[in-house]
């Protein structure tokens, strides 16, 4: 009977072909000409492998898993092989174990519980009588052991750490490193075994022991102080490596075991940090390594690099530090770009602490600006900016401007910003400063950040003696090129301000040019018409033209331009033109006052993106400092008349900031916003001796308000409030205060709609009392969805320098179920924390 069944089995087996060998499969798959063909082959083979697995075939399991691993590398799923790997690991055959462990490392994942099934096998294999099996177990555990596995098997690892078999000892050391990384609390149990690790002669054990000691010292201050006593021994080992003759086994290009040298240097760094005695004990050996190491190949430089890092990190004497920086300086001259890269990175780290030493290599660093490698260029640029100071500003700036001219676009923005910053800090003269900024605008004008326009305007305004020179240079720049918007904007602004100086040929700094009023107007009108000009630029140009009406003699041409643009398709331009027209007609008596020269602006922050980006540095003409208008007393009162005209004695209209392309317009927006608020009777203004509007409109714009990140460190905790709740429209206010400027409160409105129909064309407007200033940013949308399915949010920034109680009037307009709705409300119940 038995013979019959065996015979039957033999027949069965003979009928089934053995699974195809691994290399055969690889060869076959590589003949596939398309992805689809490959996929088909793979699917076929996977099916056959799957059925083979199902039959619990021990003989070919190894072969099948190996094939599965190959297919896995090609990107195909192989999870059905996971358990098979475990079976292979449990097998007694070495081949099976080898592939099984490999499969486990490739297919198993500590996030899946199935990996825990390995634990017992690994435990057994760790005490196997064949060291290569033990090695497999140690390797797998040390590569992918989960925290649970490590906890279970740490004891076995610790035992192997004490064995005299160096093959196993070195693996156990690295396995211990992994265990400690996964379960730091287990570190203590490895301490006894570390006792004699450094007395080993075997380099493998030495190397891995140093790695283990490093890991322990980095993780525990106690371990660190415990192991400090090893410094002399480490120094000795390092010395032997350097002084010993040629050792073929460990030699790399004439250097003995560079891997071990580097690791020892690193451990010394950790031990010498913040420790005077330790640092002193390693001083000599560091100097020796630094001076004796062969630098012709990468391997020597790798050691030097680690040495430099160590010297800079421990408490080394100044001579050693200078030596280290000089090594980096020599690295900079190395032909190998990898070495140059590494040098620049290290110099960037040390430039703060060893500034003078790094300065000595300035010219080499600057040369690296011309390197071909992008990473090297970037580092050289950063380092160059770090090295700029009052003494070298002229020379450095020349190099940096040249770099700006020729560098890739990805660098231009950062380089321009860096130049502006450096110029601001170290400019030797105002003229130099203006020239430098102009140079940046002409060469990299399209890459400068938005805030550079108002910053430059401020700079120019405040350099009174340079006005004529500046406007002349900017005018000439415009004649050359009108494509770079920031340049054009600054130029327009200047011409609008100082056009009178331009035509009168008053320039002292250079040869004054001859230009007529008409020529200037030609240029500005050209900007208005040019397709290269953005909407923002056009706004600048129109305002500039308008301003010239009080500086030039011929007003008619200007009047004509203004009235033509009154029907411009561009809403922004149209609005301005209409308002300027109104200035000519109804308010001509105010015009000269409104368009007066700008006062000196208060400088707040020098850098950082500002909200000014959205307002383009334009200042409300009404924000006039009475101090700087001594010759024109009357306009002050008239300005106030304008404000009072808008209704309400104590309400100041908001400056509506539209999306970035739309700058604030001069006066008209005020009229527009609250024109029909009907808070007072008619349009006739009562003469009022109210105090003039407070200054620093520009200060408000330029004090670095924009990015919300300024408010990240705010301990707000200000309770939100419901500001409005009528007819289904609910508006909530949430608050944030800035630590940086306690006068600013940021209010975010959240408008929601509880009715079943949506509210479209939703517009929120607000006005605050005179002592406040308000800035309204663009809303998230104009549609408030029905049934509270979403909210419209909008940010309001309130400046409250006098810390008065906050009050607000809001005007809401929207369309609901086909009809237009409008409502006004007062908001008075602000929480005290919002304004105190």
């Amino acid at each position: 009977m038995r013979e019959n069944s065996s015979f039957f089995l033999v027949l069965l087996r003979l009928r089934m072909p053995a699974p195809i060998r691994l290399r055969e499969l690889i060869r076959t798959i590589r003949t596939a000409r398309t992805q689809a063909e490959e996929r088909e082959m793979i699917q076929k083979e996977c099916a056959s492998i799957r059925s083979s697995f199902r039959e619990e075939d021990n003989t070919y399991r190894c072969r099948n898993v190996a094939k599965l691993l190959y297919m896995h590398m090609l990107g195909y799923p192989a999870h059905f092989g996971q358990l098979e790997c475990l079976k292979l690991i449990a097998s007694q055959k070495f081949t099976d174990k080898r592939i099984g462990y490999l499969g486990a490392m490739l297919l198993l994942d500590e996030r899946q519980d199935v990996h825990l099934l390995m634990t017992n096998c690994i435990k057994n294999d760790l005490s196997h009588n064949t060291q290569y099996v033990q090695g497999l177990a140690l390797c797998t555990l040390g590569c992918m052991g989960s925290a649970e596995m490590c906890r279970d098997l740490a004891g076995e690892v610790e035992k192997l750490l004490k064995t005299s078999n160096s093959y196993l000892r070195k693996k156990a050391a690295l396995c211990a490193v992994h265990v400690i990384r996964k379960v730091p609390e287990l570190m203590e149990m490895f301490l006894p075994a570390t006792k004699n690790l450094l007395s080993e002669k075997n380099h493998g054990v030495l190397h891995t022991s140093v790695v283990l000691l490093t890991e322990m010292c980095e993780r525990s201050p106690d371990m660190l102080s415990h192991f400090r006593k090893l410094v002399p021994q480490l120094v000795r080992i390092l010395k032997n490596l350097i002084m010993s003759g040629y050792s073929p086994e460990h030699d790399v290009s004439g250097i003995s075991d560079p891997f071990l040298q580097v690791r020892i240097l690193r451990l010394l760094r950790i031990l010498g940090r913040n420790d005077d005695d330790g640092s002193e004990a390693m001083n000599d050996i560091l100097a020796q390594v630094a001076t004796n190491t062969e630098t012709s190949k990468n391997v020597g430089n790798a050691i030097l690099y680690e040495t430099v890092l160590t010297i800079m990190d421990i408490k080394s004497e100044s001579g050693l530090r200078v030596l280290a920086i000089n090594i980096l300086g020599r690295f900079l001259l190395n032909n190998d770009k990898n070495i140059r890269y590494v040098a620049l990175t290290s110099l960037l780290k040390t430039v703060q602490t060893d500034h003078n030493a790094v300065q000595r290599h300035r010219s080499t660093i600057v040369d690296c600006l011309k390197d071909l490698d992008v990473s090297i260029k970037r580092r050289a640029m950063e380092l160059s900016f770090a090295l700029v100071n009052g003494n070298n500003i002229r020379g450095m700036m020349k190099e940096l401007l040249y770099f700006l001219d020729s560098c890739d676009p990805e660098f231009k923005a950062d380089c321009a910003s860096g130049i502006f910053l450096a110029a601001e800090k170290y400019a030797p003269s105002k003229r130099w400063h203006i020239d430098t900024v102009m140079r940046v605008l002409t060469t990299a004008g399209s890459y400068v950040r938005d805030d550079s326009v108002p910053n430059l305007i401020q700079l120019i305004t405040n350099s009174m003696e340079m006005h004529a020179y500046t406007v002349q240079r900017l005018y000439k720049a415009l004649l050359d090129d009108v494509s770079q918007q920031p340049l054009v904007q600054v130029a327009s602004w200047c011409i609008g301000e100082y056009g009178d100086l331009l035509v009168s040929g008053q320039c002292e700094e250079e040869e004054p040019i001859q230009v007529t009023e008409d020529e200037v107007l030609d240029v500005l009108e050209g900007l208005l018409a040019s397709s290269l000009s953005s909407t923002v630029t056009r706004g600048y140009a129109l305002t500039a033209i308008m301003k010239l009406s009080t500086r030039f003699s011929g007003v008619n041409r200007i009047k004509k331009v203004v009235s033509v643009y009154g029907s411009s398709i561009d809403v922004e331009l149209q609005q301005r033109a209409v308002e300027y027209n109104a200035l000519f007609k109804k308010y001509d008596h105010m015009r000269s006052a409104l368009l007066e020269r700008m006062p000196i602006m208060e400088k707040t922050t020098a850098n950082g993106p500002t909200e000014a980006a959205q307002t383009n540095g334009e200042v409300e003409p009404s924000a006039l400092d009475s101090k700087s208008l001594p010759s024109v007393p009357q306009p002050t009162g008239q300005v106030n008349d304008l404000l009072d005209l808008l209704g309400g004695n104590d309400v100041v209209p908001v400056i509506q900031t539209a999306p970035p392309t739309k700058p604030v317009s001069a006066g008209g927006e005020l009229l527009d916003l609250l024109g029909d608020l009907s808070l007072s009777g008619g349009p006739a203004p009562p003469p009022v001796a109210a105090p003039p509007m407070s200054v620093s409109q520009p200060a408000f714009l330029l004090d670095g308000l924009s990015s919300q990140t300024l408010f990240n460190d705010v301990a707000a905790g200000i309770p939100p409030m419901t500001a409005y709740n009528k007819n289904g429209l609910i508006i909530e206010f949430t608050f944030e205060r800035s630590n940086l400027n306690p006068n600013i409160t940021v209010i975010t409105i959240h408008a929601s709609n509880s009715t079943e129909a949506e509210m479209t064309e939703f517009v929120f407007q607000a006005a605050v009392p005179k002592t406040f200033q308000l800035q309204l940013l663009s809303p998230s949308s104009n549609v408030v969805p029905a049934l509270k399915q979403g909210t419209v949010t909008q940010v309001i920034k309130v400046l409250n320098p006098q810390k008065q109680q906050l009050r607000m009037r809001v005007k809401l307009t929207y369309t609901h179920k086909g009809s237009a709705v409008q409502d006004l409300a007062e908001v008075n119940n602000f929480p005290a924390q919002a304004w105190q």
Partner: protein
Amino acid sequence: MKRKRLNTGFKMQFMLLFSRQGKLRLQKWYVPLSDKEKKKITRELVQTVLARKPKMCSFLEWRDLKIVYKRYASLYFCCAIENQDNELITLEIIHRYVELLDKYFGSVCELDIIFNFEKAYFILDEFLLGGEAQETSKKNVLKAIEQADLLQEEAETPRSVLEEIGLT
């Protein structure tokens, strides 16, 4: 994928070998990541490295890691190390691995690695463990591999036909 991993900054996180067409030939991961994450990282990194021009240096910054790569014939060897690690010695590690492969296969080429990928892994696992070098002597690594191969051969001593078909 943003896991807070307590690390000391000196670790090698993974090593990838890939061809000039971007085909993966070996992947060794020393940090736990899902298959999906590994695929994503591999794809991105391969693209980034292949886009580099020959004149560029062997190091690049990628996410919060440093990538050290070197091309040997048609294969790119690419290691990801943490921020405190020494890029120059990593280049030496890569070179040592190539030397080991070369000695083992005799003038190694990409095809050797394709058809004997499991051997390439075995050699790597005798040289590095958990991302660190476990043996700095070329001779000792090769000796260990040789012995293990012998052990494997012994385990596969010629079988009779019946053995082959699993009957004894």
